[in-house]
C-alpha cells in the first residue's frame, strides 16, 4: 500500500500544477513493483529559508524568520528555527524542518547525557559543530542525507565561534555566514558591514545589520516572512528573542510605471 496521501487519487499530471510549484510532483512515484528497502529523503518537503549570522564585539548573533514553507505555500508561520544547545551554543537551520526537529532531539539527548556525567565539562560550540559535521557527513555517505544547511554559533572560554555545515558534510567558518538565498542576497551586505569590525560592533549595531539584511531578503525571497527571531550568544550565555516583525514599506510601488495594465 502506498502510504503517501498525495499519491492517492491524483489528477493526471498534465492537468495538475503545470508549473511544478508543488514539491510533491517532483517526488518519485512509489511504484509498488520496484519499491523496496529503506526510504530516503530525496528532497526536502517542509522547508525553512535563509539563516544569517555574524560575529560582533560580545559574541555572535544569528537571525532566522518564522516561516516553514510547503513548496510555494506558506504553510507554518510560527516556527522557531533557532535552537539553544546547552549554555554556549545556538543552532540555526534552513532546509527540511522535520530533519531539523530530528537533529534537535539528538542534540537535546546529547546535552543531557553530558550533563549526567557531572564531570565539570560542558560541550561548547566547536564540539557541537564537530558532532553535527560527523552526523551530516555520515548521513550523506549513506546516501540518506539530513536535508539542511546549519549554522552553529557560540561563545565559550572567551572565544567566539561561527561555522556552517550542510547536507553534504561541507563545513567552513567565517565572521559572517548566510545560508540559502541569504548566501546570495545577505552575505555581501553582511561582509561589507562586518568584515574588519568584528571586535568593535556593538550589540545594537549587530542587530541593525541583521534586521536590514532580513528586510532585503523579505523583499526578494518569496519563501521568506516578515516575522523573525534573533539569537545572541555572549559571555552570559544564549538568549533567543521573542518573534518580532519587520517594518516594511511598500510606498515605492506607487512610483512604478510601465508594467501590466499601467498605461501612462
Amino acid at each position: 500500500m502506498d502510504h503517501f496521501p498525495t499519491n492517492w487519487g491524483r489528477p493526471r499530471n498534465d492537468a495538475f500544477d503545470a508549473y511544478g510549484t508543488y514539491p510533491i510532483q517532483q517526488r518519485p512515484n512509489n511504484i509498488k513493483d520496484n519499491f523496496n528497502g529503506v526510504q530516503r529523503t530525496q528532497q526536502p518537503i517542509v522547508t525553512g529559508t535563509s539563516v544569517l549570522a555574524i560575529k560582533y564585539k560580545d559574541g555572535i548573533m544569528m537571525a532566522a524568520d518564522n516561516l516553514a514553507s510547503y513548496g510555494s505555500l506558506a504553510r507554518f508561520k510560527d516556527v522557531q528555527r533557532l535552537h539553544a544547545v546547552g549554555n554556549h551554543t545556538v543552532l540555526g537551520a534552513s532546509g527540511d524542518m522535520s530533519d531539523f526537529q530530528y537533529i534537535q532531539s539528538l542534540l537535546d539527548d546529547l546535552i543531557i547525557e553530558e550533563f549526567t556525567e557531572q564531570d565539570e565539562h560542558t560541550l561548547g560550540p566547536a564540539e557541537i559543530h564537530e558532532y553535527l559535521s560527523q552526523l551530516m557527513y555520515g548521513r550523506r555517505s549513506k546516501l540518506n542525507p539530513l536535508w539542511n544547511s546549519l549554522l552553529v554559533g557560540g561563545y565559550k572560554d572567551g572565544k567566539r565561534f561561527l561555522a556552517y555545515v550542510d547536507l553534504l558534510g561541507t563545513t567552513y567558518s567565517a565572521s559572517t555566514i548566510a545560508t540559502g538565498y541569504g548566501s546570495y542576497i545577505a552575505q555581501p551586505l553582511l561582509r561589507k558591514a562586518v568584515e574588519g569590525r568584528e571586535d568593535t560592533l556593538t550589540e545594537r549595531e549587530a542587530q541593525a545589520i541583521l534586521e536590514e539584511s532580513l528586510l532585503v531578503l523579505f523583499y526578494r525571497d518569496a519563501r521568506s516572512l516578515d516575522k523573525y527571531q534573533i539569537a545572541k550568544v555572549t559571555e552570559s550565555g544564549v538568549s533567543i528573542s521573542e518573534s518580532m516583525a519587520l517594518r516594511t514599506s511598500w510606498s515605492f510601488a506607487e512610483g512604478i510605471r510601465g508594467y501590466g495594465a499601467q498605461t501612462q
Partner: protein
Amino acid sequence: MTSIGTGYDLSASTYSPDGRIFQVEYASKAVDNSGTTIGLRVKDGIVLAVEKLVHSKLLVPGASNRRIQTIDKHIGLATAGYLADGRHLANRARSEASNFREFYHSPPQVKDVTERLGQYVQVYTLYSSVRPFGVSTILGGVDKTGPNLYVVEPSGVFFGYHGAAVGKGRQLAKAELEKLKLAELSTREAVFEVARIIHLVHEDNKEKEFELEMSWIGAETQGIFLPVPKDLHQEAEEKAKAALDNFE
C-alpha cells in the same frame, strides 16, 4: 540466621518453606552495612545526602566514587550498598529516562523512571543465574507534579516518601526526619537539616572518617539537579558540627 544450612538460601529462584527468598534478604543486609543515605522531599524541592565512609586515608578527598548520581536534568539518585551495583542501576535509570524522552518527546516524571527501575531490579530476584542488587536506591526529582521522592529496594518494590533513610544509621535518621515539618521546609533549610542528621547518625560510627555528599533540586536551582554549591555545603557542615557540640 536459622536459614543457614537449610539449602533454601542458595538461589533467588527458590522460596523457603515459609515463603521467603533469602537471597533478597541477604541483599538487604548488604545495604544495612553501608553508610547512611538520606532523601528529603520538601515544599519546593528535593535534597539527597550521603554519609560516604572513607575506607582509607590514602584516598584523595572528593575525587572519586560519587554516590549521588544524575539521571536526567531534573532527576537524581543516591544509593546505599554496593557502589558498583549503584552505578549500574544509575546507568540503567539514565537509559530509561532517555528512552522515555525519545518515545514520548517529554521529560519523564520521577515515578516513570522509578517504575522502570523497580521492574528491572525485580527481574534479578527471579533467576538462579543472577544475584539481586545489593543496593537501596533513593530517587528524587522535581517534575510537572512537583517534588517526588522514591526508594527502590533490592526486592524491586518501591514506595514514595516525604523523607527516606537507608543504610547503617537509618533508624536514628528516620526518627529525626519524623520530627521535621517536611511540607513546610524550603529546600535551602532542608540542606541544613540533612547535613545535621548525617553528622548526628555518624556519631555511632565515629571510628571511621566520612565525607558528606549532598545534591539538591528546587526553585533555587531552576529545576536542575545539581551538587549543593561549595559555600552552602561548607556552611551547612559547620552548622551541623556546631549543633552536635551543643547536643553533647
